[in-house]
């Protein structure tokens, strides 16, 4: 078996409950602490697992149990307070995908900017530019400032860019809940294609059908802990028995 592409060892991250809490300089500069202060809670604690290349993993759990935080840790946009996150290959995160787009720039400029920030060179982007625009179905708006697009179009172009990044690891949060049905189906087909191309997938969803469609392995998060790491059907069965409605 080859080396895992994602390794989490004893990962924990804590947040403050209220943003207005008092904060001192000493607090800010303190090295990583294992104890929590009043007003803080562990969003995730003692999470350890490894992922092999090409695996498709579904993350299951109720709202606020740390699913998105887990994805952000793997992306590297937040850092753990304890333990370590090791990701050996590039990540294409479909989290807050429209975040990187600038209102005042045109669609074209935004495509070059976002893809560039994820490490693509100008030439690579130019090669894929037409494909990206065609996928998002906004050929008529290439030189329109981003702020004038409809919200559906914004998500479409963002998905089109990130899914063309050619990164070996794909992280999908519940972003695809927006957008019309036809486009969602198109996105899902694209994800399936990527999976067939050997990508590693991390998928967060509440939709059981989607989870079963893409994923083979499941991670069940509850109260900030990794409760079960097993094939997706087992994970879903446990989740349903604890919180779900009985399958009809």
């Amino acid at each position, binding site marked *: 078996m*080859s080396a895992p592409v994602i390794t989490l060892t004893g990962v924990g*991250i804590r*947040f*403050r409950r209220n*943003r207005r809490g008092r*904060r001192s300089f000493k607090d*800010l*500069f303190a090295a*990583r602490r294992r104890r929590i202060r009043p007003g803080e809670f562990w969003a995730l604690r003692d999470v350890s697992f490894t992922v092999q*290349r*090409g695996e498709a993993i579904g993350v299951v759990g109720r709202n606020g149990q740390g699913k998105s935080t887990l994805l*952000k840790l793997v*992306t*590297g*946009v*937040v*850092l753990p*307070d304890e333990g370590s996150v090791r990701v050996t290959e*590039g*990540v294409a*995160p479909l*989290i*807050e*995908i*429209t*975040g*990187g787009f*600038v209102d*005042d*720039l045109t669609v074209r*400029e935004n495509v070059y*900017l976002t893809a*560039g*920030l*994820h*490490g*693509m*060179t100008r030439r*690579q982007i130019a090669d894929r530019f037409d*494909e990206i625009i065609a996928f998002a179905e906004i050929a008529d708006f290439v030189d329109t400032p981003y702020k004038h697009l409809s919200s559906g179009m914004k998500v479409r172009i963002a998905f089109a860019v990130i899914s063309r*990044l*050619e*990164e*070996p690891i794909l992280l999908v949060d519940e972003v695809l809940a927006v957008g019309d049905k036809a486009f969602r189906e198109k996105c899902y087909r694209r994800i399936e*294609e*990527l999976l*067939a*191309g*050997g*990508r590693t997938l991390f998928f967060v969803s509440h939709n059981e059908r989607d989870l079963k469609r893409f994923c083979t392995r499941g991670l069940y998060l509850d109260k900030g802990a990794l409760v079960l790491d097993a094939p997706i059907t087992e994970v879903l069965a446990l989740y349903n028995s604890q919180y779900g409605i009985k399958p009809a």
Partner: protein
Amino acid sequence: MRGGARRAPTIDGVSSYAEVRPEQRTTFARYRHSLWLLTQRDLRVRYSTSMLGYFWSILDPLVMAGIYWFVFTQVFQRTVGNEPYIVFLLSALLPWMWFNGTVSDCTRAFLREAKLIRSTRIPRTIWVNRLVLSKGIEFVASIPVLLLFAVAAGAEVSAGAALFPLAILIQTILTAGIGLIVAPLVVFFRDLERAVKLILRFLFYASPIIYGTADLPAELQFWAGFNPLSGLFSLYRAAFFPEQLDWTLVLISAVMSVLFLVVGLVVFTRTERAVLKEI
């Protein structure tokens, strides 16, 4: 080992991951690439939303220089600085605009870009350094204006002009260092944003911009030396006024700048984790 999947036939235009992924470049090359992209974006946004983008970035220091020139040559009898006074003013005022613009923008470096920072993984120091770079480019673009005034006012360019790159280097280090301290702290202490603006206004008069360090009373000169901007501006002014150059001040300025950068890097790395959670 790698294998199987890589040689799989492409399905419907989708390549397997190893084929067309972004080139694995060195960390440094990737850093430079991202930094340059964001700097370009800054400049592009600024100039695509206003027709007179470049003109505005020049106009601000020009108006200020015009006011001080009027006050100190037409209203009062000027006893400080060198002749021609407008060149004396501009040679410190233009670098000051770079310093002032970067530090005041750094107060919003994280808050304004929160969405982008939450979705990309690029090294976080870029959010400060891109401000240093884009304002620095504006500064370099404003140098022709300084030369224009020098020619019009009949100032002679001395051999000290060769020190310009050194001055730019010191200022880059100093500005980046202060930016790295200010940017993360403002995220936690929002009041700091106003405090920084106030300090900058004080610093404008506490630095040798409308005067030269030599014009200060002797007992103040010692303390003015600790202002890293004193040595810096004397270095810039050496291009037209060789007598303004004071190597002791320059040395203090260089040492202070490096110190600021070291402190900045320490503050930045220690607070990075908390900043990412807060924004």
